[in-house]
């Protein structure tokens, strides 16, 4: 009996614990470059967790995570930039013809304000957008495209406002910023940010796990399955959806905050349409609805990308493309999802399992392309 319990505990927490231990120990065996790279990938894993929450569980495919990530990153980068400029006007403002610091930059001299803004602004934006969008029952692809449009709009806008945002360049050259009296780039600070990222990842993971394990999480799944039924059970889907949307946005923003000091640059290209799609790809590769899958997917795809591009700089995209195709065909539920289902599948194979022949597949349209198709006839 006790043994069983232990086995279950290991099953539930084993891989997570091992992962965390490995990550915490990473500074001991990784080179400086690889450590910074891993830190960056871990921030991606954080984004993926938030996306998994809203998409894997709640069924809302947000193509706007890049936006929230970017806003978080910009918020903190503004502070770092002011720090790095040492009281002078940031360089890009000079060469864009500004003479003094714009008013909305002023409060970002305070790290507390910057951090708060970096978290709250994306949350607020998600809240407002979510409220209107969900209230008018925008669903499925329509939701995806709205979030994508907002992402595109913001990144174009950021590019256009060079004097205030650094334009295409983004905010860079943060090297001389000081964190607790140390230069941003000094090894202890970098290590600190790395560890902070690991801790944040663990925290976000536990939060998501708690949320999805509770009845709230099951209600999210219910929303994904049949929003009408949820409404006609007496819940206000708008409120539930806004809550997760805001949460996932703030998780992405947190990742942005951790991204900037490690990578040293944030630019509109990191918050645009393509990165937002890539975030979806991470979760899909790892396995939707399995939080660990989101983490694994983000790490694996990022490493794959980095490995392929280092090994075959001229044609690496072919390998990356093949990786996506392969993972879809070999791991239909994502890597973690499929591995979790493996024991069952093996059993099934041994007993010559028949499979549905027609095209009728899983009953969970992730994007309800035509929401009306799936809707039950009342």
């Amino acid at each position, binding site marked *: 009996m006790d043994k069983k319990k232990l086995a279950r505990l290991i099953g539930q927490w084993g891989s997570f614990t091992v992962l965390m231990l490995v990550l915490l120990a990473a500074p001991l065996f990784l080179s400086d470059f690889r450590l910074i790279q891993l830190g960056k990938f871990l921030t991606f894993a954080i984004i993926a967790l938030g996306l998994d929450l809203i998409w894997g569980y709640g069924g809302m495919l947000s193509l706007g995570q890049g936006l929230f990530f970017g806003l978080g990153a910009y918020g903190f980068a503004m502070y770092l930039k002011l720090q790095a400029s040492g009281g002078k006007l940031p360089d890009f403002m000079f060469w864009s013809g500004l003479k003094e610091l714009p008013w909305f930059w002023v409060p970002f001299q305070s790290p507390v304000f910057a951090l708060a803004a970096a978290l709250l602004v994306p949350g607020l934006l998600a809240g407002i957008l979510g409220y209107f969008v969900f209230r008018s029952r925008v669903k499925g692809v329509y939701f995806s495209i709205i979030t994508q449009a907002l992402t595109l709009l913001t990144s174009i806008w950021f590019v256009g406002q060079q004097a205030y945002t650094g334009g295409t360049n983004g905010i860079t050259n943060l090297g001389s910023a000081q964190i607790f009296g140390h230069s941003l780039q000094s090894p202890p600070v970098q290590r600190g940010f790395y560890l902070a990222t690991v801790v944040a990842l663990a925290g976000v993971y536990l939060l998501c796990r708690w949320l999805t394990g509770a009845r709230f999480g099951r209600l999210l799944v219910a929303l994904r399955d049949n929003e009408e*039924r949820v409404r006609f059970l007496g819940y206000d889907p708008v409120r539930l959806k806004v*809550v997760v949307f805001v949460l996932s946005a703030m998780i992405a923003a947190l990742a942005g905050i951790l991204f900037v000091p490690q990578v040293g640059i944030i630019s509109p290209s990191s918050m645009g349409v393509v990165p937002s799609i890539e975030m979806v790809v991470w979760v899909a590769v790892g396995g939707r609805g399995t939080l660990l899958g989101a983490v694994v997917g983000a790490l694996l795809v990022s490493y794959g990308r980095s490995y392929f591009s280092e090994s075959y700089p001229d044609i690496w995209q072919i390998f990356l493309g093949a990786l996506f195709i392969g993972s879809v065909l070999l791991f239909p539920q994502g890597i973690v999802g499929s591995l979790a289902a493996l024991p069952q599948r093996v059993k099934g194979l041994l007993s010559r399992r028949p499979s549905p022949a027609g095209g009728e597949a899983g009953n969970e349209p992730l994007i309800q392309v035509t929401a009306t198709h799936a809707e039950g006839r009342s």
Partner: protein
Amino acid sequence: MPQTTNAKAILELEEVTVSFDGFKALDGLNFRMAYGELRFVIGPNGAGKTTLLDVLTGKTRPQRGTVLFDGRVNVTRTPEHELVRQGIARKFQTPTIFPSLTVYENLEAAAGFREGVVGLMGRLDPERQERIEEVLELVALRPRAAVRAGVLAHGEKQWLEMAMLLVQEPKLLLLDEPVAGMTRAERNRTGELLQAIASRCSVLVVEHDMEFVRNFASRVTVLHLGRLLTEGPVAQVQADPRVIEVYIGRSYQAEIAA
């Protein structure tokens, strides 16, 4: 607001009209139902029965007319989820459940409907858990409690959906063809169940199975072309030549007579 002449009406509809691109699915419908009543609504395919339920649950907003629930809720102006909280629960014509959740989780989701996001983070209170157990027993899904609802057979889904409503303890239960696809024995059980429920809440059942209607209904409303054709005790209604003409059919009537 319509005058509530009879304080005991749980439901009062006046001159309700619903049209789709000019086609009137409900056409100036007047309808009343008293507390504690087990009311059956029948009528030809396309008569507007489902549309009536759509109106009562806020899914469809009528172009004209007023709907008053419980003597105080203006149904046409209240959001759907709020109507549920006020006590109107509905079973859809095709079973509508959450296929990814287990049977138990489906019921749990239904039971927590009055809780906020924070409340949903905690456990379900024991009282409601008990209620779920009770209902599971009632609909004989106990052995299936841990099964993913998506794999249930059609009839089992019907039962599950009904169970989800029962745990909510509504004031008014709306059922759209609840016994479709059930064997006679199951129909009888359902009928008994409905009669039992009716002691605690009002029930409005849409059904085509005349045998079921005869066995369990007292008062029957007949809709036709979006209007009230007739209303009254079963025997009277099924003898009404208009009902026979548009709904029951002559030979069937002959069979019954024989």
